């Protein structure tokens, strides 16, 4: 599964919104959060790859997370953010509708993905975190980036 190491029983998450749902990624994978910027389209790249951006001198790909997860598209707003994540030696940006907070969740309150039934393929999830009256969908960033599977050009 995820190579994220959890210290103790608590996991620190960056919480963001896609549509009306709340998602989380481990803070250990997040490098920084950036406002929307100019994105250069890359021809012949997979559809969910929005393009490439300039992050202080390095060029990195940005994926449209909603397209990747087959969620209905929405226009970018002032709240739109790019979350820069690093997995293994790959750094990419993920476009999300808004970043809400950084929170801590108990490992015990995370349900494994196979029990989840929903729109998103279970492959892209590591589980669902239950927080009082909220549900956080925890993303499997490796799967989203496609590590282990080749990105087909065209």
């Amino acid at each position, binding site marked *: 599964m995820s190579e994220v190491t959890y210290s103790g029983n608590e996991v620190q998450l960056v919480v963001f919104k896609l549509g009306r749902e709340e998602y989380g990624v481990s803070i250990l994978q997040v490098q920084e959060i950036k406002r929307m910027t100019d994105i250069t389209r890359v*021809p*012949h790249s997979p559809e969910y790859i929005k393009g*490439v*951006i*300039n992050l*202080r*001198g390095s060029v*990195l790909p940005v994926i449209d997370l909603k397209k990747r997860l087959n969620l209905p598209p929405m226009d970018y707003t002032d709240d739109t953010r790019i979350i820069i994540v690093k997995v293994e*030696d790959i750094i990419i940006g993920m476009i999300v509708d808004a970043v809400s907070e950084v929170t801590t969740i108990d490992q015990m309150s995370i349900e494994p993905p196979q029990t989840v039934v929903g729109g998103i393929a279970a492959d892209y999830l590591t589980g669902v975190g239950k927080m009082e009256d909220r549900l956080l969908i925890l993303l499997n960033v490796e799967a989203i980036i496609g590590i282990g599977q080749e990105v087909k*050009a065209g």
Partner: protein
Amino acid sequence: MDISQYMGMFLEESREHLQTLNNCLLDLENDPGSLAVLDEIFRSAHTIKGMSATMGFTTIAELTHEMENVLDLLRKGTVPANDDVTDTLFKCVDTLEQLVENVASNSDKPIEIKPLTAKLAAIARGDFSAAPNKQAAPSMTGLSEAEAVSAEPIKFDATEIHVVKAAKQQGMECYDVQIELREGCLLKSARAYMVMNALEELGEVIKSIPAVEDLERENFDYSFQVVIVTGVDSERIEQAVTSISEVEKVCVASSVIAANQEMAPHAVAQPERTLTNKNDKQPLKDRGEKPAVNDANSNVADKKLKSGQSVRVDIDKLDSLLNLVGELVINKTRLEQIGITHRLAELVETIEQMDRVTTDLQAVVMKVRMVPVGQVFNRFPRMVRDLSRELNKEVNLIIQGEETELDRTVIDEIGDPLVHLLRNSIDHGIEQPAERQAKGKNPIGEIRLIARHEGNNVIIMVEDDGKGINADIIKQKALEKNLITQAEADKMEQSEAIRLVFLPGFSTADAVTDVSGRGVGMDAVKTKIESLGGMVDVETKINEGSKFKIRLPLTLAIIQALLVKVCDEIYAIPLGSIDSTINITPENIKTIQSQEVILLRGQIIPIVRLSKVLNSPDTCVHNQDELFVVIVHMGENRAGIIVDTLIGQQEIVIKSMGKLLAGIKVIAGATILGNGQVALILDVGALKQ
């Protein structure tokens, strides 16, 4: 001790010393008597031994230790540097390379060194196959006592002579003290220091060989020599030194001085030489400095001096430095724009000055990344030697222009193609000695590896004086393999036919040898070179030889490019692949079998509409009255690329787009423009599908 932090340094230095060993062994083969070379080999082996012992890599230490024993005997001349011995030493270096790579890859794959150490021990015992060699050195057992003791006098400089003379006038005596430490003695420098201390109590030490600094740095084997001016007699000196622990032997002789220096060394009488031997097992052999060694030392010193002026820098750090400079340039451009929009004359002036600095800075950073091509070249002599032996051919490799500099990124990539070309020349090009003789050629074949600058390119050539490439045979082979049709073959010119060797799957060798003939060589070379933005070409003459010519850009990191606009998107086309730009009207475009073409100076050039190739958004409007065409060449072929606007020529910094986007066709990379926006670089070679 935490050794991991020294790991990088250990690996790097070991590899460097292994390279030196390889080179020096090759030199030794050509000049078996050379003490200078032997000394350098010894030094390198010794350094590796020391480092590996410190790092706890006992196998490496053990093997180098055994090597040292043999090297020491080679230095003394008791073992000749014949083929058997050098072969064994080469094998040792190979094994050491494996051992070091094992350490590097953290692999615990066992490597057997027993056969090698046994062989080395046998050689050390005098048990080697006495292959014919130009210089048969006297065997160890044949050494008479007298010979063993005879030594050349130490050379003194003028002041030292003066000191010695003055001392003699005062009734003092001058002695050469030869000290040999016990083998495997730890803290040699400390022992040496104790010896010096003991001697200084008795008189004045005026000289030591090696110099005191070298003694302090343990830059000596187990023996050293001291010249002392003293009133006491030789026995006192002997006693004083022998009382120090771990001193194996001491030999005190009254020094032969200055006036004799010009005389032939062997003619010098050595009176009053006493010999002490703590365990009397073997006769003491003198290790006095020989004149040849002096010369050698100065050579080595020169080399050391050169390398001493450089600093080892991690390439990643240089990359980030380049990135930062790139950032600086981009930010400068932004400031410029602000200055212009807000009409801030003062700001604009300041930025102009800053511009100069950043340009210089960029140039310097680029220069720092340049590495002499010799780094790659110097591994070839060994390869050529091994290969030519394997194939029973005699080949002389001549390397020229190894100081030619290339960007580090290119250097790293260029090795493999060159290996292919050299192997090819030795295997297919150079004939067997008998065959060469029959043709009236020198039986020893010659391969030249030449690098030189040519404008903004570096040219690397692999030239051989072998049998050349027969265009007819090439055509025949290509036909057999269905790579070309008979009709194509008939109208093909010789030079064209020869280029067929670069086709994938092509091979002229009837039998697959270990060396080449699998048909994977030349097309791999071509692909690699082209991926580096270079070109490879071949010229050949039957029975005179072939010449493979590689043309490479100086650097991969920064290139000149033409920026163009297609549907509001900016793309960069490397200037290296652009022939010209022209304006045409839509009427100029004709079609041949629905392929759009234009006629340019009588030549039919196919047209590529960039907006189509790049799947540009349909919404954009193209100007239909005037079309901009960029004529590019891809190898032999040319094509015209239709773009919306030409922006202009600019130096661009090539950035990788990362693993995720590697291999996207038509795009060769990305760059960052002055306004911080990312623009993609077109892969011209992939445009025509």
